[in-house]
Structure formats: C-alpha cells, structure tokens
C-alpha cells in the first residue's frame, strides 16, 4: 500500500514539473511550399524572443485551412487562397473573419529525374498539360523534344508524381494548367486536392521531391527551393509572351509586378501565367491565415509582432532560400491590415 502511495505521489510530482508552463506556444499548420522559410523565420524569431514559440507543422495547405477553421491551431498557411465557401465556413464556425497575409513569393517548378539529362529542359504549356493528363507518355514525345533540340531524350515511359495530400502547391499547379489547357480545366480543374489522371502520390513537397529523387524517368512539381536544395534539375516553362523562363527571383518578382499594383484588399490573387516578357508563369504568393479576432490577448500580440517582423527583417531571409521578397506596395498594404487584427 505504501509503495503504491509513493508511486502515485512520484508520478504526480513528475506531472507537476512537466506541467510548469513557461512561455507562449502558438500552433500553426499548413503549406509545405514555404516550410523552409517559415521554419527559418520561427527559429530566428524564437532566438530573438525566447519566450515565444511558433510551432509550425508542415502538413499541406488543405490541412492548414481545415485545422484553422476547426480552431485546433491558432493560425494556418496556404498557397491556394481560401475560396468564398471556405471563408464563409470559417466565419460560421469561428465567429470572425479570416485574413490572408502574403509572406513571400515562390515558384512551382517542373522537376524531373531523366537518366542522362542534367540540364534544364524546356516545357511548353501544352507539354505540361499533356504529361499530367497522361496523354504524353514518353520522354521522347515530339511535344517535349520539339522544345529541346539538341537534348537526347530517351524513349522511356514518363512517371508522373503529384501530391497525395491537400496541397497549395497543387492548387498553384492546377491553377496554371487550367489557364493554359481547356481540357485540363474541364477534366480536372483546380483545387488543393484533385482527381489526378495519372501518377504516384507523395506526401508534401518533401515527399514528392523524395519520390522524384528515387524514381528514374519521373516528373513532378515542387516549390523551387526543394529542387534547389536537393540538387535535382528543374525545367524552364514557356510564359505567355513566348519565352522559356527558368524559375528565379527575378522571374517570380516580374510575375507579381502587375498584381502588386492592383492587389485586392483581401490579398487573394492568382499570378500564374502572368503577363510580362520575363515573368515566370507558375509563380504564386503564399499566405498566412490569421483569424481576425483572437480570444487570447497574449497570442494576438505575439502574432501581430511576428507579422511586423516578418514584413521587415523576415523578408531579408527570403532570397537566401530562393523565395522572392514581397513587392513594396504589398508590404505597405499589409502593414495597414495588421491593425485590423483584434
């Protein structure tokens, strides 16, 4: 009996020690697209303010939207802006509006693993749509070789890799394909999770990159930094002006230039297939989803503080990780919007 009592007391004491709260933990979940820079930001911010921790889980934009709406996380992140139905659902469930805050600009690139090909292939919109629709099945198909004269493409079957989870990167990719291919638009359309005609599924940008690395003859779409960090080749895409552009900071910023001037108040905008000679056609903003009303004043202030830091110092980390900074006009507009968080 005594031994049991001692045991119970010991366990409770342990629990108490572990229970001791110190510091503020703010939970977020969502897009894998910007995960490299978010994890860097939250790490740096924690170094600055040791008692504030932003715990961000990279689970995909779909999960980010869902869990933010359910209220199981304090904020979300997505590269596919919430549609009107989702906005309404949030309002109904949580009793306040949800705000989109652009953080950085990124690019979704076609990345591949073709034996013997180490450089950048050129892809036309027709080629990309055809491949992902499953109509173009071999690497030496004329639609691909036509744009890549001088490159020796093998007669191997193309292995398409896409996302298995709800993804903003998928949204960006399918948004682009819907704009350049009527067949894609009617057959598959754009969403964070679609009914893919062909291909393997990987979980997160990480999973897709992993699969491509390991699977010869594969092609998929990932955020630029994932291809760059893992040294896998990625291709150039023909933009609306007819130029083949390989994703880089300049191309992404060029794509955002038009939108920057005409940014809507809720910051939801698509910049795929943007006009401009040097624009990279598969670019996108990525957003943090912040509820307009916070129950907890501490969390609210921490979030507002982070957003201000993100728009200033935070932007300096973007280019090092191959994301483009936000255009100045957008930054100014966001600073004003932060004030509306209560």
């Amino acid at each position, binding site marked *: 009996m005594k031994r049991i009592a001692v045991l119970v007391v010991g366990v409770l004491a342990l629990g108490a020690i572990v229970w001791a709260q110190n510091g503020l933990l703010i939970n977020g*979940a969502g897009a894998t697209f910007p995960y490299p820079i978010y994890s860097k930001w939250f790490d740096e911010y924690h170094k600055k303010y040791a008692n504030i921790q932003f715990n961000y889980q990279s*689970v*995909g*934009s*779909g*999960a*980010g*939207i*869902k*869990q933010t*709406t359910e209220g199981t996380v304090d904020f979300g992140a997505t590269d596919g802006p919430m549609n009107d139905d*989702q906005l309404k*659902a949030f309002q109904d469930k949580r009793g306040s509006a949800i705000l989109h805050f652009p953080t950085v600009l990124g690019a979704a690139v076609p990345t591949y693993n073709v034996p013997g090909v180490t450089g950048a292939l050129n892809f036309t919109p027709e080629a990309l749509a055809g491949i992902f629709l499953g109509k173009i099945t071999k690497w030496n198909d004329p639609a691909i070789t036509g744009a890549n004269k001088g490159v020796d493409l093998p007669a191997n*079957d193309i*292995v398409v890799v896409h996302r*298995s*989870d*709800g993804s903003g990167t998928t949204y960006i990719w399918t948004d682009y394909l819907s704009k350049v291919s009527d067949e894609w638009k009617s057959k*598959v*359309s754009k*969403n*964070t*999770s*679609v*009914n*893919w005609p062909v*291909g*393997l*599924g*990987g*979980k997160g940008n990480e999973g897709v990159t992993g*699969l491509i690395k*390991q*699977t010869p*003859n*594969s092609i998929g779409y990932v955020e630029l930094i994932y291809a760059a960090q893992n040294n896998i080749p990625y291709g150039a895409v023909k933009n609306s002006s007819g130029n083949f552009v390989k994703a880089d900071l300049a191309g992404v910023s060029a794509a955002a230039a038009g939108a920057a001037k005409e940014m809507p108040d809720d910051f939801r905008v698509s910049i795929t297939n943007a006009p401009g000679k040097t624009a990279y056609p598969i670019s996108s903003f990525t957003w943090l989803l912040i509820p307009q009303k916070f129950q907890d004043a501490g969390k609210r202030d921490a979030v507002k503080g982070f957003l201000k830091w993100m728009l200033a110092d935070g932007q300096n980390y973007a280019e090092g990780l191959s994301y483009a900074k936000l255009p100045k006009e957008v930054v100014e507009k966001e600073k004003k919007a932060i004030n509306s968080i209560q």
Partner: protein
Amino acid sequence: MATSGTTLPNAGPATGSRSFLSRLRDGDEIARLITLVFAATVVLITLLLVYELWTNSALARAKFGLHFFVTQVWDPVIDQYGALPFMYGTLVTSALALLIAVPLGIGAAIFLAELAPPRISDTLQFFIDLLAAVPSVIYGLLGVFIIVPLMRTVIFPGLNKPLGFMPFFKGPSYGVGFLTAGIVLAIMVIPYIISVSREVLLSVPRDQREAALALGSTRWESTWKVVVPFAKTGILGSVFLALARALGETMAVTMVIGNTPTISASLFSPGDSIASVIANQFTEATGDLYLQSLVALGLVLFLMTFILNGLARILIVLTTQKGSGVPT
C-alpha cells in the same frame, strides 16, 4: 452469481453471496462497484467508438448508400467519393501478403512444432515474438530504403522480363506499388501465423502422429497428411488473424504503396489502401462530405476487421477444443 474462487468456504447452502449488509461492511460491495464501473467503461468506450463511426459518416452514407462500395471515383473537387479503389488496394496488398506469408509461416510453424527440439523451438519462438513487436513505422522505414530500390532494380526486372505478358506483371515499375506493400505486409504478419499455427500444431494429440508413423508413413507424411489436417481449422484461424492485422496496417503501407487511388491488375502499379488514404487526407478534408466519406471508409475497415477477427477466434477455439478431445 459469483463464480470465481473467492467465496467463503462455509457460506451456507449455495455458493455465493453473503448478505448485502455484510458485504457492505467489509468494503466488498464498494470494491465490487468500483471495479464494475471500470469494466463497464470498457464496454461504454467500445459502444461509443462504434456510435461515433456511425454518426460521423451519416452524410456520406445518406448520399452514396451502397454505391459507395462500387464507385471508383475519389474526387474532392466535385465532392464525389467511392471506396472501391481503396478496398481494392487493401484487399490486394493483404492477399499478396498472405500468399507470401502463409507458406513460409506454416512451414516455419511445422518445423518449430514437429522437428525442432523444445529448447530450440522455444528460443526461435522467442525471436519470432520479438519480430511481432517491431512497429509498423520501422517496417515502413525499411520498405522505403531497402525494399523499394530492391523492387526497382531486382524484383521487377526479374519478374517482368519472363512474365511481362501476363497482366499481373506488366510494367512500368516505380518501386512503390501493390507488390512492395504486399512484401512488407508479409514480413509483418508472418509472426502471427507462426505463433498461432505452432500452438495449434502442438495441441494435436500425440496418438495421431504415432498412429500414422506406426502405419509406416515418413515423418513428413505423418505431419502433412495427418497432423496438419487435424489442425487445419486453427491454422486457418491464424491466417484470418494475420489478414485482420494486414488490413488495418497503416504506416508501412502508406510509405510504400504509391498513394494513388488506382485499380490495376498489375502488381507493380501504385495504389492506395483504406488506412493509408485516411492517414493522408483526414487532417485536411475540408468540407463535411469529404470528411465523412473518410470516416465511412474507417467504418468499412472496422467492419472488415471485426468480421475477420470473429471468424478467426471461432476457428482457433474449434481446433484447440478438437485437440483436447472435446467432442465437436
């Protein structure tokens, strides 16, 4: 009426309850009530689980009805959901697992029960029990880094070149797919087949074997033609148990199956299973119908494992009863 051994020796005419007051005074009634509450909690939790599964899939069941089982489409964009590709994937990978694991498992069980000296048999059984303890995610780890490349470099060419004309072995192969998942699952369920089969084989009465040997059969013949058939119901039970485990496996499968809702005869095709799709899509299912369709899938899986486990239990009990001489 209390049936356990804790009764007063001289309690009076029938065994069992003393007067209520006497129990209360000794604190027994309180003890009984406390433990009853906990036992009842178990029942309550189980009922609650089934209830939750049922109600949280109501939308999907209402909208799709029995069509859910035969619809191939899984499309969140148009909110159209069908369980067929996932049921297919679950069943195919489990069937493959059994095809590989059952011969190996029964063979090993025969060795352990009939041939190996008791000490070796026990030691090997010890190791096999440890194998059963390895968690799913570790099998997944091995699957991703060892079996997937093996599949791509050795197994696929090995099977595709000679047998590629058959629909089962058509390429291309990505490394991940039904067969890869099947192999990983096979490794996971072998221990179950071995332990249960070994036990039922050991429970076959000696005189069966001896009679066969006395009639001049070889050891193999006595084992295969007499002992194993005697135990076959129990062995079948072990197979069902293994199947039930394979159906519910999540992590190892989701890491090597390819995560595409495809129905294909080819073993090398990527696919998806019920448990795997729930793991991938549950936290992000925006929209009630989407989420409830996933819960409906969970309900389907639950029913499948429920039925199989029940059958398994009956079969194993039948065999061990047979073995101990209880007339069936």
